[in-house]
């Protein structure tokens, strides 16, 4: 419940300050527009469209998801949070906020892709949505813990993508594979191993994040 209160505080704060939402919305619009302009009338393969889909998601996440801790650090409100709740509660609240943001962000990206990219044809939508849901959780969890780490550093802007790349790479590779399977119309049973890897990634990242956050937060 206390974690939900932190999420609520962040959500209302976001609605008033637009720290992350504006950055995410602009990034999504700009990247999708650039891809559309550069493709032009060319026919691009569904695999390439699927690949570009995750590229947009990765860089959009890089542009907005670090705000969850960076804005607290920059405004100096971190001390107040330290006083109000234990580290695990803070992490739960921030994680909830980032996961909601990732779902919103990816919802918009899926919508834009469906509207503007004719080659983005998914034959197994069920598998695609499972992939998106598990992927959103993975991106949400990883970006939250990395945001917590970089919020203490000096060069936050540069450090975030640099640290995120190796952490998110295994996730993105599996997501690319599963998107390819969805485009090909493979069944969930055929994609079982990749889905299991995705699930394991999320569980490992979540456990490691909760264990690490205590140390990151305290000093």
């Amino acid at each position, binding site marked *: *419940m*206390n974690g939900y*209160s*932190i999420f*609520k*505080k962040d959500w*209302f*704060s976001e609605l*008033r*300050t637009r720290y992350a939402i504006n950055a995410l919305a602009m990034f999504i619009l700009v990247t999708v527009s650039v891809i559309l302009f550069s493709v032009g009338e060319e026919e691009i393969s569904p695999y390439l469209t699927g690949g570009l889909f995750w590229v947009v998601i990765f860089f959009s996440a890089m542009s907005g998801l670090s705000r969850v801790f960076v804005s607290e650090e920059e*405004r*100096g*409100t971190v*001390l*107040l*949070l*330290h*006083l*109000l*709740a*234990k*580290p*695990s*509660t803070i992490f739960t*609240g921030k994680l909830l906020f980032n996961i909601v943001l990732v779902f919103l962000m990816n919802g918009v990206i899926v919508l834009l892709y469906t509207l503007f990219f004719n080659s983005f044809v998914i034959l197994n939508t069920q598998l695609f949505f499972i992939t998106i849901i598990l992927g959103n959780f993975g991106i949400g969890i990883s970006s939250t813990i990395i945001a917590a780490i970089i919020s203490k550093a000096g060069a936050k802007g540069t450090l975030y993508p640099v640290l995120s790349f190796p952490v998110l790479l295994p996730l993105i590779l599996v997501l690319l594979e599963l998107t390819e399977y969805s485009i090909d119309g493979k069944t969930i049973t055929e994609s079982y191993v990749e889905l299991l890897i995705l699930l394991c990634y999320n569980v490992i990242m979540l456990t490691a994040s909760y264990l690490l956050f205590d140390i990151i937060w*305290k*000093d």
Partner: protein
Amino acid sequence: MSNHKLILQDVTKFFGRRLIFQNINKEFFSGNIYGFAGNNGTGKSTLAKITAGLLSPNKGKAEHYKQQQPIDYNELYNLIGFVSPELILYDEFTAEENVLFALQIRGIKPDGKKIDFLFEKFNLFGRRKDTLKKYSSGMKQRVKFIIALIHNPTLLILDEPTSNLDNKGKEIVYKIIESEAKEKLIIIASNEKNDLLLCNNILQLENYKQ
């Protein structure tokens, strides 16, 4: 009486290679007002943060007890009220929202009467629905006091409690400190003579440099 006891054991703090203080050993008991005094840079705010569990010492420890039982670090946040110039509130929220969020995050059900009572006590009742952007620094300091007191903590740590306050604000704060001291353990870190006059035991931090 809340029976909050704090023990500082060999507390030593460095920032980089610079020694701030070393080997502070002291016990603090409820019903008293303790002072951390010293010139600028002697580590008053640092020691206040260490006692609140916000900063770790390089050596030694700060242990908290309630009814003779040690308090776990993860439970400490609900027993401490902390006021400091370094404490920054959310400017985009109203004063009342700041207080409500603080209570909800702590997991405490807001008590409307108590909130109104404290806003009235600090002469902010009429402005409680204004965002903090519109507040002066003195008014923000009063909101910090409301947040520090609203959950009825057993330990109050006040770092420069009267900074930014006008004479009326200082009067209100002194009265509150005196009344809260009957029940709670209060620590004041300050350079102000009048703040330190409230204390019945003062720790001079210059004595812990060597």
